[in-house]
Protein backbone atom coordinates (compact mmCIF):
# COMPACT_ATOMS: atom_id res chain seq x y z
CA UNK A 1 0.00 0.00 0.00
CA UNK A 2 1.12 3.48 -0.65
CA UNK A 3 2.60 5.32 2.32
CA UNK A 4 0.19 8.21 2.28
CA UNK A 5 -2.88 6.03 2.07
CA UNK A 6 -1.61 3.83 4.90
CA UNK A 7 -1.00 6.87 7.01
CA UNK A 8 -4.42 8.37 6.34
CA UNK A 9 -6.33 5.16 6.96
CA UNK A 10 -4.46 4.60 10.19
CA UNK A 11 -5.43 8.08 11.33
CA UNK A 12 -9.07 7.44 10.53
CA UNK A 13 -8.98 4.08 12.29
CA UNK A 14 -7.71 5.64 15.51
CA UNK A 15 -10.15 8.50 15.28
CA UNK A 16 -13.17 6.28 14.63
CA UNK A 17 -12.27 4.00 17.54
CA UNK A 18 -12.24 7.03 19.82
CA UNK A 19 -15.62 8.16 18.54
CA UNK A 20 -16.93 4.63 18.93
CA UNK A 21 -16.04 4.62 22.62
CA UNK A 22 -17.89 7.89 23.07
CA UNK A 23 -20.78 6.49 21.04
CA UNK A 24 -21.04 3.48 23.34
CA UNK A 25 -21.39 5.82 26.30
CA UNK A 26 -24.19 7.70 24.54
CA UNK A 27 -26.00 4.51 23.57
CA UNK A 28 -25.72 3.19 27.11
CA UNK A 29 -27.18 6.32 28.62
CA UNK A 30 -29.90 6.56 25.99
CA UNK A 31 -30.86 2.90 26.38
CA UNK A 32 -31.17 3.21 30.13
CA UNK A 33 -33.14 6.45 30.04
CA UNK A 34 -35.55 5.08 27.47
CA UNK A 35 -36.25 2.04 29.64
CA UNK A 36 -36.38 3.76 32.98
CA UNK A 37 -37.92 7.16 32.41
CA UNK A 38 -41.53 6.11 32.77
CA UNK A 39 -40.95 4.77 36.28
CA UNK A 40 -38.76 7.59 37.52
CA UNK A 41 -40.99 9.81 39.61
CA UNK A 42 -41.37 10.98 43.18
CA UNK A 43 -43.30 7.90 44.11
CA UNK A 44 -40.33 5.77 42.96
CA UNK A 45 -37.92 7.74 45.12
CA UNK A 46 -40.09 7.68 48.21
CA UNK A 47 -41.54 4.17 48.29
CA UNK A 48 -40.38 1.02 49.95
CA UNK A 49 -39.40 -1.96 47.80
CA UNK A 50 -42.33 -4.09 46.76
CA UNK A 51 -43.30 -7.24 44.92
CA UNK A 52 -45.19 -5.29 42.34
CA UNK A 53 -43.13 -3.07 40.05
CA UNK A 54 -45.67 -0.25 40.00
CA UNK A 55 -45.46 0.26 43.75
CA UNK A 56 -41.76 -0.44 44.22
CA UNK A 57 -39.37 2.34 45.22
CA UNK A 58 -35.84 2.98 46.33
CA UNK A 59 -36.35 4.85 49.59
CA UNK A 60 -34.53 2.32 51.75
CA UNK A 61 -31.81 1.79 49.18
CA UNK A 62 -31.10 5.52 48.89
CA UNK A 63 -31.04 5.90 52.65
CA UNK A 64 -28.70 2.91 52.90
CA UNK A 65 -26.38 4.35 50.28
CA UNK A 66 -26.19 7.67 52.13
CA UNK A 67 -25.44 5.95 55.45
CA UNK A 68 -22.83 3.66 53.96
CA UNK A 69 -21.07 6.41 52.03
CA UNK A 70 -20.87 8.79 54.99
CA UNK A 71 -19.21 6.21 57.20
CA UNK A 72 -17.00 4.88 54.42
CA UNK A 73 -15.66 8.40 53.88
CA UNK A 74 -15.26 8.92 57.62
CA UNK A 75 -13.13 5.78 57.96
CA UNK A 76 -11.14 5.97 54.74
CA UNK A 77 -10.22 9.67 54.44
CA UNK A 78 -7.98 10.08 57.51
CA UNK A 79 -6.16 6.84 56.79
CA UNK A 80 -5.74 7.71 53.12
CA UNK A 81 -4.40 11.22 53.66
CA UNK A 82 -2.13 10.18 56.52
CA UNK A 83 -0.65 7.38 54.43
CA UNK A 84 -0.08 9.67 51.46
CA UNK A 85 1.56 12.31 53.67
CA UNK A 86 3.89 9.74 55.14
CA UNK A 87 4.89 8.32 51.78
CA UNK A 88 5.45 11.70 50.14
CA UNK A 89 6.82 13.82 52.98
CA UNK A 90 8.51 11.46 55.41
CA UNK A 91 9.49 8.16 53.83
CA UNK A 92 12.95 7.85 52.27
CA UNK A 93 11.95 7.36 48.62
CA UNK A 94 14.42 4.67 47.61
CA UNK A 95 14.25 2.59 50.75
CA UNK A 96 13.24 -1.01 49.88
CA UNK A 97 10.56 -1.06 52.59
CA UNK A 98 8.99 2.11 51.20
CA UNK A 99 8.98 0.65 47.70
CA UNK A 100 7.29 -2.42 49.13
CA UNK A 101 4.61 -0.19 50.68
CA UNK A 102 4.15 1.61 47.39
CA UNK A 103 3.79 -1.55 45.32
CA UNK A 104 1.47 -2.98 47.97
CA UNK A 105 -0.83 0.04 47.66
CA UNK A 106 -0.90 -0.25 43.87
CA UNK A 107 -1.79 -3.93 44.27
CA UNK A 108 -4.56 -3.19 46.74
CA UNK A 109 -6.00 -0.73 44.24
CA UNK A 110 -6.13 -3.56 41.71
CA UNK A 111 -7.39 -6.30 44.00
CA UNK A 112 -10.81 -7.63 42.90
CA UNK A 113 -13.53 -5.95 44.93
CA UNK A 114 -15.12 -9.28 45.75
CA UNK A 115 -12.03 -10.24 47.76
CA UNK A 116 -12.61 -7.18 49.93
CA UNK A 117 -16.08 -8.63 50.40
CA UNK A 118 -14.69 -11.94 51.66
CA UNK A 119 -12.30 -10.05 53.94
CA UNK A 120 -15.10 -7.91 55.36
CA UNK A 121 -17.36 -10.94 55.82
CA UNK A 122 -14.74 -12.80 57.84
CA UNK A 123 -13.34 -9.94 59.89
CA UNK A 124 -16.10 -7.40 60.38
CA UNK A 125 -19.25 -9.47 60.08
CA UNK A 126 -18.06 -12.60 61.89
CA UNK A 127 -14.90 -12.13 63.95
CA UNK A 128 -15.72 -8.66 65.27
CA UNK A 129 -19.39 -9.51 65.47
CA UNK A 130 -20.77 -6.47 63.66
CA UNK A 131 -23.27 -8.72 61.86
CA UNK A 132 -24.77 -7.55 58.58
CA UNK A 133 -24.72 -3.93 59.63
CA UNK A 134 -23.94 -0.57 58.09
CA UNK A 135 -20.78 -0.57 60.21
CA UNK A 136 -19.50 -3.78 58.61
CA UNK A 137 -20.45 -2.61 55.12
CA UNK A 138 -18.84 0.79 55.38
CA UNK A 139 -15.64 -0.57 56.94
CA UNK A 140 -15.37 -3.01 54.04
CA UNK A 141 -15.85 -0.26 51.47
CA UNK A 142 -13.40 1.95 53.37
CA UNK A 143 -10.68 -0.66 52.88
CA UNK A 144 -11.63 -0.87 49.22
CA UNK A 145 -11.28 2.85 48.48
CA UNK A 146 -8.32 3.44 50.81
CA UNK A 147 -5.67 2.72 48.16
CA UNK A 148 -7.48 4.91 45.63
CA UNK A 149 -7.48 7.83 48.06
CA UNK A 150 -3.82 7.25 48.91
CA UNK A 151 -2.74 7.29 45.27
CA UNK A 152 -4.80 10.38 44.41
CA UNK A 153 -3.56 12.24 47.49
CA UNK A 154 0.03 11.35 46.67
CA UNK A 155 -0.40 12.88 43.22
CA UNK A 156 -1.83 16.05 44.75
CA UNK A 157 0.98 16.31 47.31
CA UNK A 158 3.61 15.74 44.62
CA UNK A 159 2.19 18.69 42.69
CA UNK A 160 3.06 21.09 45.53
CA UNK A 161 6.37 22.65 44.46
CA UNK A 162 9.44 22.09 46.62
CA UNK A 163 10.10 25.83 46.74
CA UNK A 164 7.19 26.12 49.19
CA UNK A 165 8.68 23.46 51.42
CA UNK A 166 12.12 25.05 51.35
CA UNK A 167 10.71 28.48 52.10
CA UNK A 168 8.98 27.06 55.16
CA UNK A 169 12.01 25.14 56.38
CA UNK A 170 14.19 28.21 55.92
CA UNK A 171 11.98 29.98 58.47
CA UNK A 172 12.77 27.37 61.08
CA UNK A 173 9.63 25.31 60.63
CA UNK A 174 9.64 21.72 61.81
CA UNK A 175 8.62 19.05 59.39
CA UNK A 176 5.11 18.66 60.80
CA UNK A 177 4.65 22.41 60.57
CA UNK A 178 5.72 22.39 56.94
CA UNK A 179 3.47 19.43 56.19
CA UNK A 180 0.37 20.58 58.04
CA UNK A 181 0.82 24.31 57.57
CA UNK A 182 1.92 24.53 53.95
CA UNK A 183 1.89 21.28 51.98
CA UNK A 184 -1.48 19.91 53.02
CA UNK A 185 -3.44 23.16 52.52
CA UNK A 186 -1.94 23.53 49.05
CA UNK A 187 -2.75 19.94 48.16
CA UNK A 188 -6.32 19.98 49.47
CA UNK A 189 -8.10 20.71 46.16
CA UNK A 190 -6.32 17.80 44.47
CA UNK A 191 -6.99 15.53 47.42
CA UNK A 192 -10.66 16.52 47.40
CA UNK A 193 -10.92 15.59 43.74
CA UNK A 194 -9.43 12.18 44.47
CA UNK A 195 -11.72 11.65 47.42
CA UNK A 196 -14.83 12.52 45.45
CA UNK A 197 -13.88 10.16 42.63
CA UNK A 198 -13.16 7.33 45.07
CA UNK A 199 -16.47 7.96 46.82
CA UNK A 200 -18.28 7.69 43.53
CA UNK A 201 -16.56 4.38 43.06
CA UNK A 202 -17.81 3.27 46.47
CA UNK A 203 -21.36 4.34 45.62
CA UNK A 204 -21.41 2.01 42.63
CA UNK A 205 -19.80 -0.98 44.36
CA UNK A 206 -22.10 -3.99 44.52
CA UNK A 207 -20.22 -7.24 44.94
CA UNK A 208 -18.48 -6.63 48.29
CA UNK A 209 -21.73 -5.44 49.85
CA UNK A 210 -23.60 -8.48 48.62
CA UNK A 211 -20.92 -10.63 50.25
CA UNK A 212 -21.07 -8.80 53.58
CA UNK A 213 -24.82 -9.15 53.48
CA UNK A 214 -26.61 -6.13 52.09
CA UNK A 215 -30.23 -7.23 52.00
CA UNK A 216 -32.28 -7.18 48.86
CA UNK A 217 -35.48 -6.48 50.73
CA UNK A 218 -35.66 -4.14 53.65
CA UNK A 219 -38.86 -2.56 54.87
CA UNK A 220 -37.51 0.30 56.92
CA UNK A 221 -34.79 2.93 56.63
CA UNK A 222 -31.79 2.39 58.88
CA UNK A 223 -31.64 4.37 62.09
CA UNK A 224 -28.29 3.43 63.52
CA UNK A 225 -24.95 2.18 62.36
CA UNK A 226 -25.78 -1.30 63.65
CA UNK A 227 -28.91 -1.66 61.52
CA UNK A 228 -29.25 -3.84 58.46
CA UNK A 229 -29.16 -2.07 55.15
CA UNK A 230 -29.45 -2.25 51.42
CA UNK A 231 -27.89 0.05 48.88
CA UNK A 232 -28.91 1.30 45.46
CA UNK A 233 -26.69 -0.98 43.31
CA UNK A 234 -27.72 -4.08 45.26
CA UNK A 235 -31.36 -3.14 44.78
CA UNK A 236 -30.73 -2.66 41.08
CA UNK A 237 -29.03 -6.05 40.87
CA UNK A 238 -31.98 -7.65 42.52
CA UNK A 239 -34.42 -6.17 40.00
CA UNK A 240 -32.19 -6.69 36.97
CA UNK A 241 -31.82 -10.37 37.76
CA UNK A 242 -35.58 -11.04 37.52
CA UNK A 243 -37.03 -12.28 34.26
CA UNK A 244 -40.06 -9.94 34.23
CA UNK A 245 -39.68 -6.95 31.88
CA UNK A 246 -41.27 -4.47 34.32
CA UNK A 247 -38.54 -5.15 36.82
CA UNK A 248 -35.95 -4.34 34.17
CA UNK A 249 -37.67 -1.02 33.71
CA UNK A 250 -37.52 -0.12 37.40
CA UNK A 251 -33.92 -1.36 37.49
CA UNK A 252 -33.25 1.16 34.72
CA UNK A 253 -34.99 3.86 36.71
CA UNK A 254 -32.76 2.97 39.68
CA UNK A 255 -29.71 3.17 37.42
CA UNK A 256 -30.79 6.63 36.30
CA UNK A 257 -30.77 7.79 39.91
CA UNK A 258 -27.40 6.14 40.48
CA UNK A 259 -25.85 7.68 37.37
CA UNK A 260 -27.26 11.09 38.17
CA UNK A 261 -25.63 10.88 41.58
CA UNK A 262 -22.31 9.79 40.08
CA UNK A 263 -22.32 12.33 37.27
CA UNK A 264 -22.94 15.17 39.68
CA UNK A 265 -20.08 14.00 41.90
CA UNK A 266 -17.89 13.69 38.81
CA UNK A 267 -18.85 17.20 37.77
CA UNK A 268 -17.95 18.58 41.20
CA UNK A 269 -14.58 16.83 41.06
CA UNK A 270 -13.76 18.18 37.61
CA UNK A 271 -14.81 21.67 38.66
CA UNK A 272 -12.57 21.64 41.71
CA UNK A 273 -9.71 20.32 39.63
CA UNK A 274 -9.97 22.97 36.94
CA UNK A 275 -10.48 25.83 39.37
CA UNK A 276 -7.52 25.05 41.57
CA UNK A 277 -4.90 23.93 39.09
CA UNK A 278 -2.59 26.47 40.62
CA UNK A 279 0.74 24.90 39.99
CA UNK A 280 0.26 23.24 36.64
Amino acid sequence: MNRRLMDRSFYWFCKSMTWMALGILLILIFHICRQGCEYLDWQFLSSLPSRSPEKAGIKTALAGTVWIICFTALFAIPFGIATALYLEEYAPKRHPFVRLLQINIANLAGMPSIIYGLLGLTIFVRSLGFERSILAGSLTLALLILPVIVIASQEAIKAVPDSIRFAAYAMGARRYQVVLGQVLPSAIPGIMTGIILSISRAIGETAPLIIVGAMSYIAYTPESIFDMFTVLPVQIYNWAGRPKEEFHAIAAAGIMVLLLLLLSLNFIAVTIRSRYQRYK
Partner: protein
Amino acid sequence: MQNKTKFFDRSFHYALLVFVLTTLAVTLSVVVVLLNESSGFFAHVNLLDFLFGTKWTPLLEPKSFGILPLICGTFMIVIGAIAFALPVGLAIAIYLSEFASYNSRKRIKPILEVLAGIPTIVYGFFALTFITPLLKNIFPEIQIFNALSGALVVGIMILPMVASLCDDGFRALPPSLREGAYGLGAKPYEVIRHILLPASTSRIAATLILAISRAIGETMAVTLAAGATPNLSFNFLDSIQTMTAYIVQVSLGDTPANSIEYQSSYAVGLVLFIMTFFMNVIGNLVLAKKPLEAM
Protein backbone atom coordinates in the same frame (compact mmCIF):
# COMPACT_ATOMS: atom_id res chain seq x y z
CA MET B 1 8.57 25.87 72.96
CA GLN B 2 11.40 24.44 70.91
CA ASN B 3 11.39 21.17 72.81
CA LYS B 4 7.64 20.95 72.63
CA THR B 5 7.57 21.30 68.85
CA LYS B 6 10.45 18.88 68.52
CA PHE B 7 8.58 16.29 70.53
CA PHE B 8 5.45 16.94 68.51
CA ASP B 9 7.39 16.53 65.29
CA ARG B 10 8.55 13.07 66.37
CA SER B 11 5.11 11.97 67.53
CA PHE B 12 3.48 13.11 64.31
CA HIS B 13 5.99 11.10 62.31
CA TYR B 14 5.27 7.90 64.24
CA ALA B 15 1.52 8.47 64.18
CA LEU B 16 1.61 8.64 60.39
CA LEU B 17 3.72 5.50 60.26
CA VAL B 18 1.00 3.62 62.15
CA PHE B 19 -1.54 4.64 59.50
CA VAL B 20 0.79 3.52 56.71
CA LEU B 21 1.26 0.12 58.26
CA THR B 22 -2.48 -0.53 58.08
CA THR B 23 -2.17 -0.77 54.30
CA LEU B 24 0.27 -3.65 54.76
CA ALA B 25 -2.02 -5.15 57.37
CA VAL B 26 -4.86 -5.23 54.83
CA THR B 27 -2.85 -7.36 52.42
CA LEU B 28 -1.66 -9.61 55.22
CA SER B 29 -5.14 -10.13 56.57
CA VAL B 30 -6.43 -10.98 53.11
CA VAL B 31 -3.82 -13.73 52.88
CA VAL B 32 -4.51 -14.99 56.40
CA VAL B 33 -8.28 -14.93 56.00
CA LEU B 34 -8.27 -16.71 52.65
CA LEU B 35 -5.80 -19.38 53.77
CA ASN B 36 -7.49 -19.89 57.09
CA GLU B 37 -11.04 -20.18 55.77
CA SER B 38 -10.14 -22.39 52.84
CA SER B 39 -8.10 -24.75 55.01
CA GLY B 40 -11.39 -26.29 56.13
CA PHE B 41 -12.31 -26.80 52.52
CA PHE B 42 -9.03 -28.47 51.67
CA ALA B 43 -9.49 -30.85 54.59
CA HIS B 44 -12.42 -32.32 52.64
CA VAL B 45 -11.32 -31.83 49.07
CA ASN B 46 -8.03 -33.02 47.69
CA LEU B 47 -5.98 -30.09 46.35
CA LEU B 48 -5.26 -31.88 43.08
CA ASP B 49 -8.92 -32.73 42.54
CA PHE B 50 -9.69 -29.08 43.16
CA LEU B 51 -7.13 -27.73 40.74
CA PHE B 52 -7.53 -30.26 37.94
CA GLY B 53 -11.09 -31.53 38.36
CA THR B 54 -13.33 -30.78 35.41
CA LYS B 55 -16.68 -30.80 37.21
CA TRP B 56 -17.94 -28.01 39.47
CA THR B 57 -21.21 -29.06 41.11
CA PRO B 58 -21.03 -27.78 44.68
CA LEU B 59 -24.77 -27.44 45.15
CA LEU B 60 -25.87 -30.76 43.63
CA GLU B 61 -25.28 -34.31 44.71
CA PRO B 62 -22.80 -35.83 44.05
CA LYS B 63 -20.77 -32.78 44.99
CA SER B 64 -17.70 -32.19 42.94
CA PHE B 65 -15.19 -29.40 43.32
CA GLY B 66 -13.02 -29.21 40.23
CA ILE B 67 -12.30 -25.53 39.60
CA LEU B 68 -11.38 -25.83 35.90
CA PRO B 69 -14.87 -24.95 34.61
CA LEU B 70 -14.83 -21.72 36.65
CA ILE B 71 -11.32 -20.87 35.43
CA CYS B 72 -12.39 -21.67 31.90
CA GLY B 73 -15.40 -19.38 32.24
CA THR B 74 -13.23 -16.63 33.67
CA PHE B 75 -10.74 -16.88 30.85
CA MET B 76 -13.38 -16.81 28.16
CA ILE B 77 -14.45 -13.47 29.59
CA VAL B 78 -10.81 -12.34 29.73
CA ILE B 79 -10.01 -13.37 26.16
CA GLY B 80 -13.11 -11.76 24.74
CA ALA B 81 -12.65 -8.59 26.75
CA ILE B 82 -8.98 -8.19 25.84
CA ALA B 83 -9.61 -8.95 22.17
CA PHE B 84 -11.93 -5.98 22.18
CA ALA B 85 -10.24 -3.59 24.61
CA LEU B 86 -6.59 -3.88 23.61
CA PRO B 87 -6.79 -2.85 19.94
CA VAL B 88 -9.49 -0.26 20.54
CA GLY B 89 -7.76 1.08 23.66
CA LEU B 90 -4.44 1.35 21.84
CA ALA B 91 -6.08 3.15 18.95
CA ILE B 92 -7.70 5.63 21.33
CA ALA B 93 -4.40 6.16 23.14
CA ILE B 94 -2.62 6.79 19.84
CA TYR B 95 -5.33 9.17 18.73
CA LEU B 96 -5.20 11.09 22.00
CA SER B 97 -1.44 11.33 22.28
CA GLU B 98 -0.44 11.72 18.62
CA PHE B 99 -3.34 13.10 16.58
CA ALA B 100 -5.87 14.92 18.75
CA SER B 101 -5.54 18.66 19.23
CA TYR B 102 -5.08 19.98 22.74
CA ASN B 103 -8.70 21.06 22.85
CA SER B 104 -10.31 17.86 21.67
CA ARG B 105 -8.04 15.93 24.02
CA LYS B 106 -9.24 18.11 26.85
CA ARG B 107 -12.82 17.26 25.92
CA ILE B 108 -12.38 13.53 25.27
CA LYS B 109 -10.44 12.67 28.42
CA PRO B 110 -13.20 13.55 30.92
CA ILE B 111 -15.72 11.59 28.84
CA LEU B 112 -13.48 8.54 29.03
CA GLU B 113 -13.30 9.13 32.79
CA VAL B 114 -17.08 9.03 32.92
CA LEU B 115 -17.02 5.74 31.02
CA ALA B 116 -14.53 4.42 33.59
CA GLY B 117 -16.68 5.62 36.47
CA ILE B 118 -19.87 3.82 35.49
CA PRO B 119 -20.54 1.06 38.02
CA THR B 120 -20.12 -2.51 36.90
CA ILE B 121 -23.73 -3.32 37.80
CA VAL B 122 -24.85 -0.81 35.17
CA TYR B 123 -22.68 -2.48 32.56
CA GLY B 124 -24.18 -5.81 33.55
CA PHE B 125 -27.67 -4.46 33.03
CA PHE B 126 -26.60 -2.97 29.69
CA ALA B 127 -25.21 -6.32 28.56
CA LEU B 128 -28.31 -8.21 29.61
CA THR B 129 -30.88 -5.85 28.14
CA PHE B 130 -29.04 -4.36 25.15
CA ILE B 131 -26.00 -6.32 24.00
CA THR B 132 -27.54 -9.79 24.28
CA PRO B 133 -30.71 -8.90 22.31
CA LEU B 134 -28.45 -7.27 19.72
CA LEU B 135 -26.31 -10.40 19.48
CA LYS B 136 -29.43 -12.49 19.13
CA ASN B 137 -30.00 -10.87 15.76
CA ILE B 138 -26.61 -12.13 14.62
CA PHE B 139 -26.54 -15.49 16.43
CA PRO B 140 -30.13 -16.71 16.83
CA GLU B 141 -29.02 -19.72 18.88
CA ILE B 142 -27.43 -17.57 21.61
CA GLN B 143 -28.59 -18.15 25.19
CA ILE B 144 -30.01 -15.38 27.37
CA PHE B 145 -26.95 -15.64 29.59
CA ASN B 146 -23.84 -16.02 27.47
CA ALA B 147 -20.10 -15.53 27.62
CA LEU B 148 -19.90 -13.27 24.57
CA SER B 149 -22.12 -10.56 25.94
CA GLY B 150 -20.29 -10.65 29.28
CA ALA B 151 -16.91 -10.53 27.57
CA LEU B 152 -17.89 -7.57 25.40
CA VAL B 153 -19.20 -5.56 28.29
CA VAL B 154 -16.11 -6.27 30.39
CA GLY B 155 -14.12 -5.15 27.36
CA ILE B 156 -16.00 -1.84 27.36
CA MET B 157 -15.37 -1.50 31.09
CA ILE B 158 -11.60 -1.92 30.90
CA LEU B 159 -11.30 0.16 27.72
CA PRO B 160 -10.76 3.51 29.51
CA MET B 161 -8.07 1.98 31.70
CA VAL B 162 -6.21 0.51 28.73
CA ALA B 163 -6.49 3.76 26.79
CA SER B 164 -5.34 5.95 29.64
CA LEU B 165 -2.38 3.76 30.67
CA CYS B 166 -1.14 3.51 27.06
CA ASP B 167 -1.69 7.23 26.55
CA ASP B 168 0.43 7.97 29.64
CA GLY B 169 3.09 5.68 28.20
CA PHE B 170 3.23 7.43 24.83
CA ARG B 171 3.28 10.85 26.42
CA ALA B 172 6.08 9.88 28.76
CA LEU B 173 8.38 9.21 25.79
CA PRO B 174 10.82 12.05 25.16
CA PRO B 175 9.75 14.36 22.30
CA SER B 176 13.25 14.02 20.83
CA LEU B 177 12.33 10.47 19.84
CA ARG B 178 9.49 11.69 17.63
CA GLU B 179 11.34 14.71 16.37
CA GLY B 180 14.25 12.56 15.27
CA ALA B 181 11.97 10.37 13.16
CA TYR B 182 9.87 13.20 11.75
CA GLY B 183 13.09 14.98 10.92
CA LEU B 184 13.93 12.10 8.58
CA GLY B 185 10.64 12.60 6.74
CA ALA B 186 8.66 9.77 8.34
CA LYS B 187 4.86 9.90 8.38
CA PRO B 188 2.91 9.65 11.64
CA TYR B 189 1.97 6.04 10.96
CA GLU B 190 5.60 5.10 10.46
CA VAL B 191 6.75 6.96 13.54
CA ILE B 192 4.11 5.21 15.64
CA ARG B 193 4.68 1.80 14.12
CA HIS B 194 8.49 1.83 14.12
CA ILE B 195 9.42 4.18 16.97
CA LEU B 196 6.68 4.73 19.54
CA LEU B 197 5.20 1.25 19.75
CA PRO B 198 8.56 -0.54 20.07
CA ALA B 199 9.70 2.00 22.67
CA SER B 200 6.63 1.34 24.79
CA THR B 201 6.36 -2.43 24.39
CA SER B 202 7.00 -3.13 28.04
CA ARG B 203 4.45 -0.55 29.18
CA ILE B 204 1.85 -1.93 26.82
CA ALA B 205 2.62 -5.41 28.12
CA ALA B 206 2.20 -4.18 31.69
CA THR B 207 -1.08 -2.53 30.74
CA LEU B 208 -2.20 -5.80 29.20
CA ILE B 209 -1.38 -7.69 32.39
CA LEU B 210 -3.22 -5.20 34.57
CA ALA B 211 -6.19 -5.24 32.21
CA ILE B 212 -6.33 -9.04 32.37
CA SER B 213 -6.20 -8.85 36.13
CA ARG B 214 -9.07 -6.35 36.15
CA ALA B 215 -11.12 -8.58 33.85
CA ILE B 216 -10.48 -11.63 36.04
CA GLY B 217 -11.72 -9.82 39.11
CA GLU B 218 -14.75 -8.30 37.42
CA THR B 219 -17.87 -9.49 39.17
CA MET B 220 -21.29 -7.95 38.77
CA ALA B 221 -21.34 -7.53 35.00
CA VAL B 222 -20.51 -11.17 34.44
CA THR B 223 -22.82 -12.33 37.21
CA LEU B 224 -25.69 -10.61 35.46
CA ALA B 225 -24.80 -11.25 31.84
CA ALA B 226 -22.79 -14.45 31.60
CA GLY B 227 -24.85 -16.73 33.77
CA ALA B 228 -24.34 -19.30 36.51
CA THR B 229 -23.59 -22.49 34.63
CA PRO B 230 -20.10 -23.76 35.32
CA ASN B 231 -19.14 -25.61 32.21
CA LEU B 232 -16.03 -26.41 30.26
CA SER B 233 -17.48 -25.57 26.88
CA PHE B 234 -15.42 -22.86 25.18
CA ASN B 235 -18.57 -21.84 23.34
CA PHE B 236 -19.02 -18.10 23.60
CA LEU B 237 -22.75 -18.38 22.95
CA ASP B 238 -23.31 -20.61 26.00
CA SER B 239 -23.95 -19.67 29.56
CA ILE B 240 -20.87 -19.99 31.77
CA GLN B 241 -19.84 -19.13 35.31
CA THR B 242 -16.78 -17.19 36.42
CA MET B 243 -14.97 -17.55 39.73
CA THR B 244 -16.32 -14.21 40.91
CA ALA B 245 -19.90 -15.05 39.93
CA TYR B 246 -19.66 -18.27 41.92
CA ILE B 247 -18.66 -16.39 45.07
CA VAL B 248 -21.68 -14.11 44.65
CA GLN B 249 -23.94 -17.08 44.07
CA VAL B 250 -22.81 -18.76 47.31
CA SER B 251 -23.31 -15.63 49.33
CA LEU B 252 -26.81 -15.05 47.92
CA GLY B 253 -27.91 -18.57 48.73
CA ASP B 254 -28.44 -19.18 52.42
CA THR B 255 -25.49 -21.48 52.94
CA PRO B 256 -24.70 -21.97 56.60
CA ALA B 257 -21.25 -20.79 57.65
CA ASN B 258 -18.66 -23.54 57.89
CA SER B 259 -20.55 -25.68 55.41
CA ILE B 260 -18.41 -26.89 52.56
CA GLU B 261 -20.14 -24.61 50.03
CA TYR B 262 -19.41 -21.62 52.21
CA GLN B 263 -15.78 -22.60 52.55
CA SER B 264 -15.48 -23.32 48.86
CA SER B 265 -16.08 -19.65 48.09
CA TYR B 266 -12.93 -18.80 50.05
CA ALA B 267 -10.99 -21.47 48.16
CA VAL B 268 -12.13 -19.91 44.89
CA GLY B 269 -11.31 -16.49 46.33
CA LEU B 270 -7.82 -17.72 47.13
CA VAL B 271 -7.24 -18.81 43.53
CA LEU B 272 -8.61 -15.47 42.33
CA PHE B 273 -6.35 -13.59 44.73
CA ILE B 274 -3.21 -15.49 43.76
CA MET B 275 -3.81 -14.95 40.04
CA THR B 276 -4.54 -11.23 40.29
CA PHE B 277 -1.87 -10.63 42.93
CA PHE B 278 1.01 -11.81 40.77
CA MET B 279 -0.32 -10.06 37.70
CA ASN B 280 -0.66 -6.81 39.63
CA VAL B 281 2.83 -7.07 41.10
CA ILE B 282 4.41 -7.62 37.69
CA GLY B 283 2.30 -4.98 35.97
CA ASN B 284 2.87 -2.33 38.63
CA LEU B 285 6.60 -3.02 38.84
CA VAL B 286 6.97 -2.43 35.10
CA LEU B 287 4.81 0.70 35.19
CA ALA B 288 6.84 2.13 38.08
CA LYS B 289 9.93 2.26 35.87
CA LYS B 290 10.74 5.25 33.73
CA PRO B 291 9.73 4.85 30.06
CA LEU B 292 13.03 4.10 28.36
CA GLU B 293 14.58 2.29 31.32
CA ALA B 294 12.08 -0.48 30.85
CA MET B 295 13.10 -1.32 27.30
